[in-house]
């Protein structure tokens, strides 16, 4: 999908996706709005009217949100908060082509969020998005695609990229350490499948599913750092403290079926379903390489030596066994 536009209007970023104008994500705190150019110059007015009606009064089988929809709000320009705005544009274009032909799209590009910055969050990061539009798609189809997609992403990402320090215990470690460490995930306990799906909520998809991947958590701790009992080295934990005693399912992506309130005003036929999924690029990379500060991976503070020394990224290769 063409995603070469960082600047987007609120209309394509939010309203066309059936995200209401009072939604907290449209706050100054979460979104970068623009001073110049402050407003979009052109919007497809016929479509805009249909979107306005759906938000404020309902229609297409929906109750709507029943609030006063404002054109000024939709005109506000911003730095896109997700690549789903590009998907909306592409789907709108697809809807204008008659007769309808099924399509599968993807994109990998930059998005911007005005959030609090910390070790794992930057103002800009990359999103991966996949979309399938066809007649009669089901939730089962979405799950099937997700299983194939995440399987291809490789065992290491799916497993949470554990690193062993040689003592036999699983530890997390920074990518750059003087002692080279290897990823060697232990076998899954019998009967546990690798991916699980959990009900979730997005304003523009229903049903929505979060995708979880299993990895065993040997260190049952809520601390940020843990000490390996053998080598006494301190390793930082990844940013999800594990409630003591729980085996850990880690979220690897989000997905869902786009709502009719989003698709029908575009002009897509009623029996066409569109399923979509997305994940960030940085998080699985940090998991795979055991990186704890995102600034070591993205931006101008990246250590060039790390770039020089990194091996090929081979998602389908088997990890090396730990040293004996």
């Amino acid at each position, binding site marked *: 999908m063409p995603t070469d536009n960082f600047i987007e209007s609120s209309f394509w970023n939010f309203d066309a996706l059936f995200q209401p104008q009072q939604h907290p994500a449209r706050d100054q705190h979460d979104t970068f709005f623009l001073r110049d150019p402050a407003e979009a110059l052109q919007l497809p007015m016929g479509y805009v009217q249909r979107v306005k009606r759906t938000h404020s009064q309902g229609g297409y089988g929906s109750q709507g949100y029943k*609030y006063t929809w404002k054109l000024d709000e939709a005109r506000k*320009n911003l730095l896109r908060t997700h690549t789903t705005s590009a998907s909306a544009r592409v789907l709108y274009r697809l809807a204008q082509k008659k007769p309808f032909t099924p399509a599968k799209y993807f994109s990998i590009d930059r998005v911007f969020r005005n959030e609090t910055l910390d070790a794992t969050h930057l103002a800009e990061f990359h999103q991966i998005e996949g979309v399938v539009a066809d007649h009669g798609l089901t939730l089962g189809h979405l799950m*099937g695609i997700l299983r194939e997609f995440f399987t291809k992403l490789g065992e290491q990402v799916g497993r949470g990229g554990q690193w062993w320090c040689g003592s036999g215990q699983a530890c997390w470690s920074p990518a750059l350490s003087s002692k080279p460490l290897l990823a060697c995930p232990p076998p899954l306990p019998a009967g546990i499948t690798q991916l699980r799906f959990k009900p979730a909520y997005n304003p523009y998809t229903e049903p929505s599913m979060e995708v979880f991947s299993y990895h065993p958590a040997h260190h049952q701790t809520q601390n940020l750092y843990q000490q390996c009992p053998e080598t006494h080295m301190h390793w930082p934990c990844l940013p999800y403290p594990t409630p003591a*005693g729980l085996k850990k399912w880690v979220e690897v992506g989000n997905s869902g079926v786009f709502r*009719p309130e989003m698709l029908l005003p575009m002009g897509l036929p009623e029996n066409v379903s569109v399923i979509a999924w997305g994940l960030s690029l940085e998080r699985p990379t940090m998991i795979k390489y055991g990186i704890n500060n995102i600034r070591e991976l993205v931006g101008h503070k*990246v250590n*060039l030596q790390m770039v020089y020394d990194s091996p090929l990224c081979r998602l389908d290769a088997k990890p090396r066994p730990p040293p004996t």
Partner: protein
Amino acid sequence: MPTVSVKRDLLFQALGRSYTHEEFDELCFEFGLELDEITSEKEIISKEQGSVKAAGASDVVLYKIDVPANRYDLLCLEGLVRGLQVFKERIKAPVYKRVMPDGKIQKLIITEETAKIRPFAVAAVLRNIKFTKDRYDSFIELQEKLHQNICRKRALVAIGTHDLDTLSGPFTYTAKRPSDIKFKPLNKTKEYTACELMNIYKTDNHLKQYLHIIENKPLYPVIYDSNGVVLSMPPIINGDHSRITVNTRNVFIECTGTDFTKAKIVLDIIVTMFSEYCEKQFTVEAAEVVFPNGKSYTFPELAYRKEIVRADLINKKVGIRETPENLAKLLTRMYLKSEVIGDGNQIEIEIPPTRADIIHACDIVEDAAIAYGYNNIQMTLPKTYTIANQFPLNKLTELLRHDMAAAGFTEVLTFALCSQEDIADKLGVDISATKAVHISNPKTAEFQVARTTLLPGLLKTIAANRKMPLPLKLFEISDIVIKDSNTDVGAKNYRHLCAVYYNKNPGFEIIHGLLDRIMQLLDVPPGEDKAGYVIRASEDGVPVVHVF
């Protein structure tokens, strides 16, 4: 995602059984909740303020549960328990009823002064309610959660709950000049005017964030009873006179705001959740609200809506094959009482007032899928046949990247946002000449503009890697942003390639060689013929490439 904190033992007591951590986590996962953290008050204070301050705090185990942002009915222990019990088929969903009072109905009269500031109000009464300390805490907590969530930090709706026995109706909701409003607010010992209160609360950590909602308006909203007692000054603070305690038996609830739909939803949620503790369980006493135009409404609405969905539609959308009867059972487990009607293929679903999130049949489809169990659905692949293509611009970029690396240059990935100086002053250019896109209210200088050139990112990378052995040969092929009034939004991305050579000597010949190599790769021959290129010196001495 909103997080609800509940005492584990209370939760298990209400659910009627105990769970291990794993069992409860599993239950949450199935239902669409997430057990985020198991902690205690002591641990929380310990983390935030150190173990000394935490010494006297409670050890009682707390579960922090994440609930979906659109499920206002799960924001308190009462709602969670009810939802889970119905899900597990241990109880039938209670039916919420609005009842007319034995005596006079409570009235809230809105005057026209509120129109410019906070025009809407709704009200209801919880009659003969029994609070315990835990129920009382839960009641206050729910209001706070709703304020943070659907009420958009009180801007859209503000909730006020009052001890009805300390007041006498009818109530008046009006707006007055700040200097004309005087009352003793909650937790204070004497009376203040509204002006004084706005000043006092400027330093109150909890309330200062709401002041802006009414601060600069000529009139402030205020609610009085028939004796002139101030119930509240929404959305800031309630009056002390009508404060609720554990011993309160009759509660008057008022919600004021700028969004009528949300005010009604909020009221419905509070009364449905806590009418459980009324003598006549799950009944709510009606109140009347009279608007300035004379129109009068009875609240709470507690509307039950019926929607009819075809069974085969649900099966088709989810990818399962359940009988209509089974589907009706699944939906009933999700608090959507359903039964098969008509020709045996239609399901009539009753949507309760607690499920304002159900606005389309697709919401019903999702609930059916949740009750069925997402992980029980068979995974299949779509039979869609499509031919794939890469976006030409990205395809070219991918090809170029590898050859740039082959030429001995290392790729970097730098930030698209930077300071104004980065793209202007530091490059000897005036900011207005850059046609850059400016961000409003950037938190720091690093987010003032979107880059109009890749050069600052490369130079910053060199600066951060000064200690590396020389030479440093870096490149980036990525987007910059320029204002363009010919596009629908007013700005456009351009794909740029930038390369930098950093060494003790300038190495112009290296960059020249790289450029020639790039042109070779792009099939642009040297020379002034059509589609060729030459390098010329420009006025300020900087060599410039002209492509024909």
